[in-house]
C-alpha cells in the first residue's frame, strides 16, 4: 500500500489544483481567446475541402456536408485535447522555477495535468455554441446514433488528451537535457497536422499511406474521435482504433515518466 501513497496524495490534491487552474484561465482571458483563435485551422480546411467537394462532387466518400461535419467536429475535439505543458515545462526548467514544483508533495506531472485539464470547462463553454451550430448546419444524421459509439467517442477523446499530454510532457522534460526541446515540439506538431486528420481526413490518403497512418499515434489525437462522432466508422473499426490509441497512451506515459525522472536527477538549478 505504501507504493500507492503518492498516487492517493495526488488524487486528494487534484480538485484543489483544478480549481486553481480554472481560476487562472479566467484571470488570463485575453490570452485564452487568442489561443482559441489560433486553432481556427480546421475552419480554413473546412472552407477548402467544401469547395473541392462543391466543384467536383464527393471526395473519398465525403460530400460538402460531410466535410462541414468533419471539420467542425475536428475543431471541437482539438479544443478538448489541446495541451501546452511542453511550453510551461521548458520555461520552468530553463528558469529554474520547476524547483518549486519539485518541493511540493504532489508529482509535478500530476500538477501540470491538473492545470491543463482545468481550462476545459471554459473551452467547452466557448465550444458548445459551435457544436450546436454544427448539429443544425450539418444535420442530425451526421452524428452517430449508436449509444455504444458515444461511449467510444468519450474514450477516444480521453485517450487523445492523455496521449497528447504524455507526449508533450515527455518533450517538455527533454528541456532537462537540452535547451531547444521546443524544436522537437514543433516537429511533432508538423507531423500531427499532416497525419492526424487535421488537414485532411485520413480516409483521403492513398491506401498505402493510410495503412501506415492508422498505426501511428497521431490519428488517435484527432481523427479517431472525430470519425467516431460523425459516424464515419462502425463498432469494429472504432474498437481497433481505440486499442491502438490506448497502446500509444501507455507508451507515451511510460516515456514521459522515464524522461522526467532521469531529467530531475541531472537537474542542477540553484537550490536543487
Amino acid at each position: 500500500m505504501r507504493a500507492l501513497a503518492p498516487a492517493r496524495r495526488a488524487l486528494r490534491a487534484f480538485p484543489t489544483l483544478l480549481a486553481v487552474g480554472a481560476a487562472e484561465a479566467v484571470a488570463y482571458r485575453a490570452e485564452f481567446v487568442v489561443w482559441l483563435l489560433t486553432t481556427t485551422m480546421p475552419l480554413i480546411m473546412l472552407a477548402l475541402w467544401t469547395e473541392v467537394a462543391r466543384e467536383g462532387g464527393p471526395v473519398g466518400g465525403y460530400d460538402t456536408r460531410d466535410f462541414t461535419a468533419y471539420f467542425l467536429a475536428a475543431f471541437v475535439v482539438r479544443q478538448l485535447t489541446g495541451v501546452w505543458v511542453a511550453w510551461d515545462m521548458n520555461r520552468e526548467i530553463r528558469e529554474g522555477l520547476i524547483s518549486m514544483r519539485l518541493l511540493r508533495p504532489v508529482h509535478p506531472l500530476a500538477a501540470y495535468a491538473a492545470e491543463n485539464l482545468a481550462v476545459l470547462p471554459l473551452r467547452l463553454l466557448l465550444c458548445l455554441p459551435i457544436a450546436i451550430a454544427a448539429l443544425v448546419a450539418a444535420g442530425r444524421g451526421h452524428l452517430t446514433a449508436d449509444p455504444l459509439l458515444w461511449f467510444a467517442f468519450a474514450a477516444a477523446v480521453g485517450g487523445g488528451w492523455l496521449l497528447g499530454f504524455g507526449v508533450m510532457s515527455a518533450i517538455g522534460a527533454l528541456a532537462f537535457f537540452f535547451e531547444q526541446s521546443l524544436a522537437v515540439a514543433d516537429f511533432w506538431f508538423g507531423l500531427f497536422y499532416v497525419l492526424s486528420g487535421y488537414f485532411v481526413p485520413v480516409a483521403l490518403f492513398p491506401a498505402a499511406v493510410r495503412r501506415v497512418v492508422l498505426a501511428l499515434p497521431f490519428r488517435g489525437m484527432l481523427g479517431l474521435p472525430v470519425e467516431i462522432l460523425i459516424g464515419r466508422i462502425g463498432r469494429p473499426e472504432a474498437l481497433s482504433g481505440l486499442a491502438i490509441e490506448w497502446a500509444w497512451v501507455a507508451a507515451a506515459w511510460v516515456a514521459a515518466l522515464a524522461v522526467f525522472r532521469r531529467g530531475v536527477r541531472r537537474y542542477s538549478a540553484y537550490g536543487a
Partner: protein
Amino acid sequence: MRRALQLLGAQLRVAALTSLQYRADFFADGVMSLFWLAVTLAPLLIVFDRRPTLAGWTFPAALLVIGWFTLLKGVLDGAVNPCLVAIVEHIRKGTLDFVLLKPADAQLLVSTSRILPWRGADALGGVAVLGFALVKLRHLPTAGQAAASVVLFLAAVALLYSLWILAVSIAFWVVKLDNLVYLFGSIFDAARWPVSVFRGVFRFLFTFVVPLAILTTYPAMALLGTLTWRTGALALSGAVVFFLAARLVFGEALRHYTSASS
C-alpha cells in the same frame, strides 16, 4: 531618413555578426524549413491528387502561391517573429524603457532588434519552389511580369510587417500575450492557398480584414500575367494604408505604455 538607414544598417550588421557565431543553427533551421515545406505541400498534393484544378488553379499555378508563401514565411520567421517576441517581453517586463530612451525612432528600433538570418532558410526553399513551378508551367515570365511580382512581394512584406505592428500594439493593453506569435502564424497559414479557393465569409475576411490575397495570391498572379493593373494598384495602395495605420496605432499604443518605473 539617412539616420534611419544608417541605424538599419548597423542593426543588420550586428544580426549578421551574431548569426555567424551560431553557424550550426544554419543546418538545424535548414532541415526544419525543408520539413515545414513538406508539411505545407502535403494537403496540396492530396487535393491535386484527386482533382486537376481547384477554383481555376492548376497544380503548378498553386505551387507558385506556395512559393511566395514560403518566401514570405522566411521573412516572417527570420525578421518579424523574433522581434515580436522581443517586444512583447519588453512590455511585460517593463524594459521597453531602455529602447524608448534611445534617441531614435522607437518603432524602427524594436522592429529590427532581433533579426535571425539563418531562419531565412525558408526563403531559399521558396525560390526553389517558384523555379520548379515555372518549369512545370513552361512559362517564362516577361520582365514586366517579374518586376510586377517583385513589387507586389515587397508590398506583401510591408503589409505583413504592418499587421505585425498592429498585433504588437495590442500587447500594450493586454500584457500577457506570449502566444501572439501562434495567432499570427495560424492566420498567416491560410495564405498558402489561392484566395479564390475561399468563398463567402472567408473570402471577405481574407480579402479585406486580413488581406491574405495581397500576401501571396497577387504576386503569383502577377507572375502568371493574370493580374489586372487595377487590382495590382489597389493591392499596393492597400499595403500603404495598412503601413500608415500601423504607424499611427503604434504611436498611440506607446502612450499607453506603463513603464517599469511609473
